[in-house]
């Protein structure tokens, strides 16, 4: 069953009053929020902030305890979440890749469908970039350049082959009928250095012009852009009328069998937490784009991402 259908059914069940008998009992103990990354990064900082803010909106004055379970490209934390009880007391804070890319390889102990979407909080924008002093100044010139030099445009991604950036760029290249050459990198420091040093021609990453960086975005492959006026003139693929698009989301999901009323309780606590001063502060400081979505809309985003990724990964020969 797809996540979307499941949520619809669940919402329906909630609406006709079939399930809410035990809602007051929930949560009956602290909620464990698994963060599949190490302590100290941006994702962890945000997860802790949203957890602190959301526990004020939970019934029964229960706490939300953040547990870091890093490793295995974030798959270890997700595995722990599917193996936990489906009573809603365990949720996992995640980014897109471990949910909509990793399981497609068929090696993880979970599938995307094993999770129930709860709330999406923000997106990380990403764009195709070139060096600030490059001869390519905008999207049209880029298209012209890559069409006249097929296969010569080298672009790097910070996650290597099969990462979100790689798949998104190849999806765009496929739609435009152009040929690009992917160069894998590990981490955005090496990637940015390599672009600025001229070893590669482009990157797919979050641009840093708003921080005084020296790389120039050409086109955003995400529907969102960083909230800074310097990006106003840069188009997104959606604005260009293209179909290729990727959403690097961050949100909370849980076990697929969590009762719908409990999903609703968790979701409304997280939605309320989005407005807290601490969380808003982080949005401003890290220049994240707040983009709340509830179980249904978030589930649809996940389903859409899985379908797109599967298609591109098959074409690239990454999966059968």
């Amino acid at each position, binding site marked *: 069953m797809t996540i979307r259908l499941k949520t619809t059914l669940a919402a329906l069940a909630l609406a006709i009053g079939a399930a809410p008998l035990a809602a007051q009992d929930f949560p009956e103990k602290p909620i464990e929020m698994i963060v599949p990354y190490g*302590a100290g990064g941006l994702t962890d900082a945000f997860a802790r902030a949203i957890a602190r803010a959301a526990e004020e909106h939970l019934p029964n004055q229960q706490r939300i305890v953040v*547990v*870091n379970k890093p490793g295995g490209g974030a798959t270890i934390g997700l595995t722990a979440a599917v193996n936990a009880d489906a009573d809603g007391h365990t949720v996992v804070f995640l980014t897109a890749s471990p949910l909509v890319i990793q399981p497609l390889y068929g090696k993880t102990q979970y599938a995307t469908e094993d999770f129930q979407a709860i709330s999406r909080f923000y997106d990380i924008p990403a764009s195709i970039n070139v060096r600030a002093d490059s001869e390519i100044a905008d999207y049209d010139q880029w298209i012209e350049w890559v069409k006249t030099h097929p296969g010569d445009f080298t672009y790097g991604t910070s996650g290597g*082959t099969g990462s979100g950036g790689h798949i998104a760029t190849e999806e765009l290249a496929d739609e435009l009928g152009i040929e690009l050459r992917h160069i894998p990198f590990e981490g955005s420091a090496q990637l940015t250095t390599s672009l600025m040093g001229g070893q590669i021609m482009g990157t797919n990453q979050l641009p840093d012009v708003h921080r005084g960086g020296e790389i120039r975005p050409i086109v955003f492959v995400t529907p969102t852009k960083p909230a800074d006026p310097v990006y106003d003139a840069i188009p997104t693929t959606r604005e260009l009328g293209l179909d290729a698009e990727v959403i690097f989301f961050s949100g909370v999901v849980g076990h697929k069998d969590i009762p719908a009323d409990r999903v609703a309780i968790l979701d409304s606590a997280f939605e309320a937490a989005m407005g807290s001063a601490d969380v808003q502060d982080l949005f401003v400081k890290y220049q994240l784009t707040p983009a709340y979505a509830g179980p249904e809309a978030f589930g649809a985003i996940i389903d859409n991402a899985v379908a797109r990724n599967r298609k591109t990964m098959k074409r690239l*020969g990454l999966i059968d």
Partner: protein
Amino acid sequence: MSIRTMNLIVYAALSGLSIMVIRAVSEIPVTMPGDVGSGFLPGFLAWLILGFCALGALRAVLAGDTGKFTSEFLGRVLITIGVIAGFLISWETLGYFFVQCFLFLFGLFTYYRWPRGPSARLFALNAAVAAGITALCYVTFTFFVFVDL
């Protein structure tokens, strides 16, 4: 056991490891143009290890016996390894890290210091030191580093 035998055992174990590596990486395909493939370096290294193990083994056989491979207090080392392994298993399955941490420290202190002659003073000191270290770890990791032990 002689040093020569020990050397030969280690060479054999390393050769076995290399063969496992060669088998594991032999089927990884090359997917990017220009790339040497992800099996190239591990495979190359495994063959290198195999070659040098053969060389070393040959030398060990030719060199003859060079002495005994023994360890003083071998029993104490083996018991310690066993205690660590037991501690890991019970920490993983039972939890209660700080309780177990205290028992682990107290147990090892008492075992190591037993030859001094058991006395109430020895037990008290061991317990005090173990409790002190445990408390320090508890305060640091629970209230400052936020690691869930």
